[in-house]
């Protein structure tokens, strides 16, 4: 399976970079049960950071679509990465460029006015 990540990184001069990632044939070797189609986008991001690109930034908390921390834009639609199954060729982007902090991580703070 192949997925595409749109990664804008300041150190790359601010331009958007669309990187293609090939997920290996056998997910079991990475401790993932079943097929990639049965795994979530969050699982793929976790796998890529662990095995392919240690610098990849992603966030994940509840793993069940309740906290919205892992929100991303997939093929144009904003969804939670943890509840979205992987599809071949899908494009994963930050939800909104103006909110982007790093890679898929965006500013979703609920307490911005009380932050120091």
């Amino acid at each position, binding site marked *: 399976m192949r997925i595409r990540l749109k990664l804008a990184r300041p150190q790359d001069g601010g331009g958007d970079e669309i990187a293609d990632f090939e997920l290996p044939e056998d997910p079991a070797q990475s401790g993932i049960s079943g097929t990639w189609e049965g795994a979530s986008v969050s699982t793929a991001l976790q796998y890529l*950071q662990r095995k392919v690109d240690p610098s990849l930034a992603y966030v994940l908390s*509840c793993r069940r679509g309740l906290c*919205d921390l892992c929100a991303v834009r997939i093929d144009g639609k904003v969804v939670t990465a*943890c509840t979205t199954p992987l599809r071949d060729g899908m494009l994963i982007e930050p939800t909104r460029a103006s909110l982007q902090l790093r*890679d898929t991580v965006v500013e*979703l703070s609920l*307490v911005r006015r*009380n932050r120091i």
Partner: protein
Amino acid sequence: MSSARIWDVVVVGAGGAGLTAARHAREAGADVLVLNKGLAGRTGATITSGGGISIADSTLARLGFDLDPAADTEQDFAQDTIRSGRFIGDQSLVTSMVEEVGDALGELITMGVKPRVVKRAPGHSSGRGVHIKGPDMQKAVTTAATRAGVMFREDFVSAGLLQGADGTVVGVTGVDRRTGLVEEVHARAVVLATGGTTSNWRLRTAPEELAGEGHAMALAAGAALIEPEMLQFLPCCVLAPEIWKGIQFPWTIGPQAGVRAWLLNRYGERFLHSWDPVNVELATRDVVSAASAAEVAAGRGSPNGGVYLSWAHLPRDIIENMPLWSKSLAADGRYQGFDFTPLIERIKSGYAIEVAPAAHFSLGGIHIDVDGSTGVAGLYACGEAAGGLHGANRLSGNAGAQMLVQGRRAGVAAVRFSRRNWSLQPATNGDELHARLVAPLERETGVAPLELAQRLGALTDRALSPIRDGARIDAALAEIADIRANALPRLAVRQRDATYNRDWLAAIESTAAVDVLEAALIGARHRRHSLGAHQRADSAAEDDRPAPFHGLVRAQGGALAYETRAVAFPVLAP
């Protein structure tokens, strides 16, 4: 890096307990800062909780609910809690919970939260309590804390407690994930509300971030962990596909709903008959979890390391009519963020679902008194991070009550201490904490933090599953010693950029996990008899069973030491 500002109270963790503590501290006049590893209001286990808050009917009647006050008293509530905890719960904490949760709920109602009264609560002798959905509860405490004027640092990974020459806690050291800088935050009192240690188990219901840094910080500062071996598992959680791993949906539409689904091993045997012939699959959560894990350990499990939950013996009408009775089973198949229609269809066409017990709640934790004090000057703990209340098992809804009552107690006590600790001593361990934190980041080559995390995951599954034995516990302790000698000193982050550095986070979390897991293993080794959540395949002879005792682990002379204490029974004796 160090900021000159001194906060009266710093709270670590922004779940229900932490934000309750922070709000009460703020309302008592303190300057309060909350440090949270992720985004406040979006991380922590409060959001994922079932939403129960246990309260005696008599208390609810006082709050204006239409219930018979004689049907269920605070004393009944206390006794159920103590019995469920197999008489090792700290009865002073139990008394505080049952007596004070009413006021806490009253406050939530004043804030506009609308709880639903619970009709049936497993293990409780009455319905006992109310229900507030996890996300609604988190929203209420977040809003209340911000309105009160509590301040926040988000994406701040707290990793060590600053201490003065006499051991008084004077602040927190941690990493700002956004800037990649190690920072000191100075405080006259610190409240740990970091939740449980459940993310060290590979199959878990709880969120990602609960590795136990708060527990490790408390140990390093001189506090004790009580009953660290006690971890509650939720049985019958999904094993596969990966996307649903750890979700308790089959449990909620099966045994938890009272539906007579059968648990079968790979031979098709209803193995719970030999554990609880009367209740069978409707046995308590600890029994169902231990029985399921024992089947897998004996080689009688399913391909993915679980057992089968089957509805196939039931007439199709009963299965098709389940949505009429089950609140969890909506007509569209949605449960939490998922569409479980494919799983329901599988059940309808006669297949069983592979399930296994998942780590759910840390029963043990940081040792506190009724005010949340850890015994270390300036250090408090509350909520799931704190141990002792539930003993060897937890009743549904008692975590919600715990977080509200202990949050207030710890917040108020921290303010009182902060007033005595006005002229703050300088920290004597700041450089040491800083050096320890940055070491894995600066090391060029060595052990990748994720390799250590995976090793710890495998170790936990082997030795701290719902069914345990002495040989596996001893082997795991030997492996922990090897990790301390050979892996921790060689931990090396694979990328140099310190901002949003996942490897660095994993290094901090696994370093804490080593302490937490060693404490759990030590507690497990010394508790030689099965008790509640701690089930041993090699449980010692019954005529040799000691009187109920507490097991405490603390750091002494560079190692973790174990001691026991007799349990006091001011409310109810066995």
